[in-house]
């Protein structure tokens, strides 16, 4: 199969890669760009563990073809903290014990940040519905929802 050469930006840095036309963005991020913080839980867009931002839009990278990202900005969990400082959401997830096994955590953080950028003052119900595309089997969601609400409050100042 002919491979395509793609140029994009990942977490603000230029990157380029060769990919087959049926290869997913998730596969490229994990296997070629070697950023394994984005997780594969289902490869059918049901679990949200592979959530990334594509030009500011929340997507499942398992449902995005790698050839689609030509010239676009990809943001993954690896770009979430700001130098030495964790993002407020990352810090609140730690303080609230909002993670256990942690496999879903990168996806939740990416999705939660996208929510708070859109809606800085969400209700509990809005948080729950926004995050309904991310599966967590450990926490029962309680501490995740608490952490997101608390982060939103701190971010509003």
């Amino acid at each position, binding site marked *: 199969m002919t491979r395509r050469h793609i140029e994009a930006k990942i977490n603000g840095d230029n990157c380029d890669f060769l990919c087959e036309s049926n290869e997913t963005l998730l596969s490229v991020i994990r296997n070629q760009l070697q950023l394994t913080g984005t997780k594969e839980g289902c490869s059918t867009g049901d679990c949200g563990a592979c959530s990334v931002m594509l030009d500011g839009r929340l997507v499942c990278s398992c449902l995005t073809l790698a050839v689609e990202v030509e010239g676009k900005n990809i943001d993954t969990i690896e770009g979430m903290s700001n130098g030495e400082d964790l993002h407020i959401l990352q810090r609140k997830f730690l303080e609230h*014990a909002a993670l256990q096994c*942690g*496999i879903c955590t990168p996806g939740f*953080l990416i999705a939660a940040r996208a929510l708070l950028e859109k809606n800085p003052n969400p209700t509990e119900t809005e948080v729950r519905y926004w995050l309904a595309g991310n599966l967590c*089997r450990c926490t029962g969601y309680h501490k995740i929802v608490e952490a997101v609400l608390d982060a939103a409050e701190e971010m509003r100042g």
Partner: protein
Amino acid sequence: MSDTVAYEEKKLKIIGTRPIRPDGVDKVTGRARYGADINLPGQLFGSVYRSPYPHAIIKSIDVSAALAIPGVKAAITGDDFEDMPSQFIPVGEMVVNFRDMTRNVIAREKALYDGHPIVAIAAISESIAKEALKHIKVDFEILPHVIDVVEAMKPGATLLHEEQYTLIERKRLGSEPTTESPPKEPSNIAKRLTWEKGDIENGFSKAHIIIEKEFNTKPVHQGYIEPHATVATCTEDGQVEVYTCSQGHFVIRSQCAKLLGIEVSKIKVIPTELGGGFGGKNNVYLEPLAIMLSKIVHRPVKMVMSRNEVFRATGPSPAGHVKVKIGCDKNGNIVAADAQIDMQSGAFPGSPLPQATITCFTRYDIENVRVIGHDVTTNRPKVAAYRAPGAPIAAFGVESVMDELAEKLSIDPLDLRIMNAAKEGTQTYYGVTFPQIGFLETLKRAKAHKNYNIPLEKNQGRGVATGFWMNIGNDTTSSLNVNDDGTIALTIGTIDVAGGSRSSLAMMVAEEFGIDSDKVRVTTGDTSQLGFNFVTAGSRGTFAGGIVAILAARKAIEECKIRAAKTWNVPLDEVVWEDGYARPASSNVGGFDPLSLADIAKNATKTGGPIAGHSEKNVQGAGPGFGTQIVDVEVDKETGSVKILRHTVIQDAGKAIHPAYVEGQYQGGAVQGIGWALNEEYIYGDDGKLQNTGFLDYRVPVASDVPFIDTDIVEVPNPYHPYGVRGIGEVPIIPPTAAIANAVYKATGIRFNSLPLSPPKVLAAITKK
């Protein structure tokens, strides 16, 4: 109890606080490495050809066309593995027969379920490996199949194993266990197990009221978000290295050694971070295949399951068919209880039958009990442990009948349970006499809880149910080194299955030394670094791991005291250890300044060398765990949808080392129970194929399905742990199914005896009414 470590009441500084978990930053930054995140230079990619049929004779396999594809390096079938004798060995709360395990890893004469591995191949890329599967030719002779547990038990049912005869075991309290000679006809019933206490007939003859009901539950999957993944390397001189995500790398090593005929010392298993297990990652699936492939090519072989493969070929819990009969006198005292639990074990025997039968009535002090269990093979994947394996199936029946009894007797459902609750000194029908337990406390706290007294509206209902899990200790090791600056390196071998045991162990060690918990770094050692550890199962991680960490710390502290005595030139008994310092035992000893752990560590070379402690133990004295849950639901009568309004978990933790992680276990377990009650089920077509092999159709609860889960941590100390710890991970999943069914009854007037209470089923019942 001999060989246990006693509880000591003392003032605590670290235990009970909520420090941030040591694995936390790696998990919020994407840095944590799980099974599929491991990549080794030169690795190949393995893929598995799986049976498309639920039951078929494998007449021949032709891999030549697959091997001819450029980039395909190796192919293996069941013939590449030695056949194993039929022999039962306990592994991870389950009994393993390696004859069966080798056949589950890769089929030999027959495919026994849709998804059963037939061929494994290794290729230079994932896409070539997947392409190669299409060129594998298997000649199947399709056989009739049996999926349902009740059908499988009937005489004349399609047999999975023609050589399987029912093993009959009877255990009567106060008598030696007996086994009968097996029946002459082969059967899908691998085992019939009976527990008896007292006189069941006589007991029922004294009953004022008897309720007898039948219940059905469906298999549910553990649903961990991380699919199974492994990378194995076998060198030319037969040294094996395996990276894998499991609940017990030592058990993975034992199983691989046995299945591949390799000495244990030649296999090193390195645990990765675990992306959820809940009992489903206690046993090998991919590891022996990856090792066998690597044995041929001597390159690392990486294998990762798809979600479809996870659903079709790993886990799930059994399906259960349960009959429960309970009789009470007119005051509500239970006089007799009888149950039959038929559990589907999947393609091979070994459902969690002992656990289901043992936990069935054990929450109550009953004079006359009988529990009969059947372990039944069917054409489904071999079941695996799932959080309190077997217990939710039995409890669904028993706690539903308890609710009905309370209603008929006009007694509050919590009062009926309080009246009959097991307590310290109660002898169970399986022989154990309970030490100090906290069941009554959970019931009384439930009764007084504000959530038990909130008024309900139309179409709403409130249900309660209880749960019990015996908990275990088992083989556990740790090694502790005092670093030269007085910080601590603790190496453990019992996997932190995500509950936060690394944090809890650091806190217990810090408490022993009298230092801050962030001075203790906890690392999970690989199999070459420590003695054997059992899988993290039976809620043993923080309990058993804690005991060996504490004992290792105590040895190191003793050594610190020896070094202080040497430094001061005083007898050892004139040195005490307090709050992180060696101090003179009294002012008579002399005016020595206390020596901190850092002071002692700094001078360790001069006083005898590095300071360390270690502990290896078959840990005893796990404290039984009990809990009570209260659930409020609202039923939408137009759609049949059940909404959880409030859910309250009240459970005895013995002592919560890190309360946030205890709450996390209560909340996570309760929501898994909600999924089991309302949505989750394995759905098979008439063709015997699993139809819902993805998270879209196998619907686990999402954030918008559940409310905040209220928790109340009861602390009745376990007498056999220095800080009173009991295992807590499993109990929370037990009560929800019955508590929700009982609440739905209150909301609708309809008793549901089969799970899940999915909208179509609830709507059909409402419409029929």
